[in-house]
């Protein structure tokens, strides 16, 4: 399974799909978040692999 973290929430998603599909499956908009793995930005066409931990960062921030 792959772990997704967004704000205070965590989800587990099956490996194999793209980041973009996983984001959509979680009910989020891929336009509104960026995916980071091991502190590095990854493009949302990347296929998620078993044991990945993906952090989703909101693009809206600041004052």
């Amino acid at each position, binding site marked *: 399974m792959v772990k997704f973290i967004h704000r205070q929430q965590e989800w587990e998603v099956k490996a194999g799909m793209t980041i973009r599909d996983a984001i959509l499956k979680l009910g989020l*908009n*891929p*336009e*509104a978040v*960026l995916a*980071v793995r091991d502190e*590095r*930005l*990854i*493009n*949302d*066409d*990347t296929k998620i692999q078993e044991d990945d931990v993906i952090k989703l*960062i*909101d*693009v*809206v*921030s*600041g*004052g």
Partner: protein
Amino acid sequence: MKCRKCGREAGFNMRRQKLALCAEHYLEWFPSQVERAIHKYKMFTPGDKVLVAVSGGKDSLALWDVLLDLGYHAEGLYIGLGIDGGFGYSRLSLEKIEGFMATRPGAVLHTVDIPQTYGESVPQVARRKHRGRGKPCAVCGLIKRYVMNRVASEGHFDVLATGHNLDDEVAVLFGNTLHWQIGYLARQAPVLEERDGLACKVKPLCRLYERETAAYAIVKGIDYIYEECPHAVGATTNRYKELLNQLELDSPGSKLQFYITFLKAKEEGLFQQAAEQVALHPCQNCGQPTTAPGICTFCRLW
């Protein structure tokens, strides 16, 4: 997905223009787009003195970073608003700016702390003045605009640069179109020229998506404040951004198209009738330009 420039694994892809880039080439692409906007809209030249309004957020820090890298004379301005929101929002914002400055030796920051200078924080003033239906955003905007203009004019800066990105601009445009605020539409532009004591304002990130500035900050390793201003949560602008992102998801490039065609329509004179400028005169108390008779709205706050 591969980087279009070098064929390595791409770190970021932009559907609006079918462009994917690796980290290294993204760090080249982003500043080139900022430079392009500066030239296209004739914002400023290398000899000009630029004051960058920095909040500790990704947009303003990314803008300052890029301007410094491009060799512009860019000094920062931080306005301490005294907003806590349960997690020390203003304190955290300043910490992020100080962290950024530690990586940029020689960078100059001007700081105006509102509670220290005027005796009250922005939320305190807002509560006392009963402006904005319980939200201090109207008072905050007024205070920030005033301080930015004052520091820009007293410091003899040629332009005041803000980190407004395309999503900010399009959300404002959407709101003004929804309510047919023709006067506001006539005044929305990448450059607001200097006049009667009002500093020239420029928005060099106005053609870059919010996710692109966030990506730049992450890839460049800029530590910015992720949290939004606690008073901005649920703001109308954010609702508009959500709607526009839904549109963007279905039809990549929609946001940019909306903005570009608006600017083109403006250029062709669509809002010319509404573009009449209200007369400004110096405030009797502080000397800053105002449309209000006698004393300006800022001086009336205190």
